[in-house]
């Protein structure tokens, strides 16, 4: 009889034990296909590299980390179903994603399922204004970017400014910020405020239209594929005015599509590039990344995915739990100047990252992004 009881007890304890030693699952939602596919590939490499390093050191709280990757297809509909799949695969937290509109379509799903959600490249202001308690982001917000953009345009003395966006949630948000900033400052005139259709090839019609308004600078708030096409076609029609871009133009594919000689001189507002991060953690990370993949990360956004991974692991480690409420509470109130890859990380009550990150970059004739 005793034996049977002991066996029963053992059977009861066994699942509990194995649950303790089981892997902790963290989801990664990234654009592996679609327009932003090169961002997604890097996000995956960065997060998998960090997870591997951590697991080799024994994991967190004695558990290994398992990364579950879902493709958001750079598309809002695909992202919603990717989020559903992650929500049903028992992840405690999700990293991602890049585009703001794409993140927005997944936000509700994570919130409803009580999953900690750390976005990595989605800078649209409204994402953190919805009061979702489990939402965080390691990237800065567009209102800050708007301020830096406005002061940059002001600093270089542009008087007639054309603002161009592409109707995506992110680009419209940033364009509105810059417009409001310029109107408030009152030193420059907005001569054109327009939108182009993303995913096309011929932007000559919009360029001709802008040219009619005679601006002395164009600020494009959209993404790198369109920025590259705009620069090429400006060159072709012989229109020589400077163009500035927002942080979504920060990707080495900008050079690949546009060609270094065409893109040279293009300036962009962006968080620091991976190579310009000067902490030891960043240097070690870049070294490990280069050793493994024989290339540096093509933009800062994938490194911010690495930071998202690090803060999630920190929250799991410090709270000893994978409960979303406990982790969110820890990140909101106790995480203070945590040493991430891109510098010190703290979050405010809305889950936004605290601190100023934006810098001005210029593309040189070799196609490199140079800090100004």
């Amino acid at each position, binding site marked *: 009889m005793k034996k049977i009881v002991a066996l029963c007890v053992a059977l009861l304890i066994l699942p509990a034990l194995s649950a303790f030693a089981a892997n902790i699952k963290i989801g990664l939602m990234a654009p592996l296909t679609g327009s932003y596919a090169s961002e997604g590939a890097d996000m995956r490499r960065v997060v998998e590299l960090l997870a591997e390093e951590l697991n080799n050191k024994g994991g967190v709280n004695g558990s290994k980390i398992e990364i579950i990757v879902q493709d958001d297809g750079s598309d809002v509909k695909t992202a919603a179903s990717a989020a559903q799949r992650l929500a049903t695969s028992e992840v405690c937290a999700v990293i991602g994603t890049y585009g703001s509109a794409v993140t927005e379509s997944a936000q509700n799903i994570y919130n409803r399922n009580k999953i900690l959600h750390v976005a990595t490249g989605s800078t649209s202001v409204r994402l953190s204004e919805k009061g979702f308690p489990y939402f965080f982001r390691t990237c800065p917000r567009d209102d800050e970017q708007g301020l830096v953009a406005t002061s940059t345009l002001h600093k270089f003395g542009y008087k007639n400014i054309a603002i161009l966006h592409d109707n995506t949630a992110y680009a419209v948000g940033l364009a509105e910020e810059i417009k409001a900033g310029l109107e408030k400052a009152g030193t420059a005139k907005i001569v054109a405020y327009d939108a182009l259709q993303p995913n096309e090839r011929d932007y000559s019609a919009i360029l001709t239209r802008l040219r009619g308004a005679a601006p002395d600078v164009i600020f494009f708030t959209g993404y790198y594929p369109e920025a590259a096409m705009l620069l090429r076609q400006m060159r*072709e029609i012989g229109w020589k005015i400077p163009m500035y871009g927002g942080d979504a133009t920060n990707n080495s594919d900008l050079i690949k599509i546009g060609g270094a000689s065409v893109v040279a001189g293009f300036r962009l507002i962006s968080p620091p590039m991976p190579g310009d991060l000067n902490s030891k953690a960043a240097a070690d990370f870049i070294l490990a990344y280069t050793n493994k993949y024989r290339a540096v990360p093509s933009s800062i956004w994938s490194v911010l995915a690495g930071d998202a991974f690090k803060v999630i692991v920190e929250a799991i480690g410090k709270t000893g739990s994978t409960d979303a409420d406990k982790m969110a509470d820890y990140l909101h109130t106790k995480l203070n100047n945590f040493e991430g890859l891109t510098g010190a990380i703290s979050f405010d009550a809305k889950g936004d990252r605290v601190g100023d990150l934006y810098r001005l970059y210029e593309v040189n004739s070799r196609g490199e992004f140079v800090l100004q």
Partner: protein
Amino acid sequence: MIEFFQQFTNGLAVGGIYALIALGYTMVYGVLKLINFAHGDLFTFGSYLGMTFLISFALSGALPPVLAVVIMFLMVMGCVALSGYLLEKAAYLPLRHTPRLTAVVSALGASIFLQNAIMLFYGPNYEVYPDSLRISSSVNLLGLDVPVMRIIMLSISILLMLALYFFTQKTKLGTAIRAVATDQAAARLMGIDVNRIISLVFMIGPALGGAAGVLLGLYYGQIRYDMGTMYGLKAFIAAIIGGIGNIPGAMLGGMLLGVLEAMGAAYISPAWKDALAFLILIIILIFRPTGILGERTAEKI
């Protein structure tokens, strides 16, 4: 006024691409009453093949640029013509005597297959044509800055269209194509090998689509596996505007759509460009369902 003419030239260049693709739709429709939805993806395929030939055969370095481009054009047109031929044999020939809807569904399937095959083979990212072949300067024509590439692009597409027009109007084979389009049964009685003519049409159409793909790659530089969907759709609209089944109609429809889109982008809003294209389609279908140059009543698909 300068801006108006500038926009006009912008529209013509895009219109040339639309027209070349529209020819493939219209020719197939003419002989088979079938909308070949896979045509847009054959166009993408041509674009990718052009890039592959340029890079892997080092055409861009070893030969004078003009010769390299001509050879590449011929190679791509040949390869895409062959795939058009195979497509017809695999996806349409077995369904020749089934209801027409079956063939349309088969066409949609072929389109999805081709698009995904290209994605799996080349990857989902943007691909870029080598820069060395592009001429990024522009010439001043009567006060307009017109990029040289744009003039070349428009000339090549007009040249190809003229060649096709003379082929169908003046040669024996061309007459046979027109005969099959008018009445298949009668054409057969006159001793025309209808299956051979249909195969021929499935080679000429895709060859022109492939050429359009290369032009697009050379001019814009940036290509992607899914671009066939939108260009195919626009070209399809162009074919309907001009009168589907009618070769000069496809040319006219393509040019017209390109110019109207550019004007819409210029004077209404660039964000409304696509909506405008479909609005034109609706207006044409309501007021002139046969298209501008079409004689036959378009039948429902």
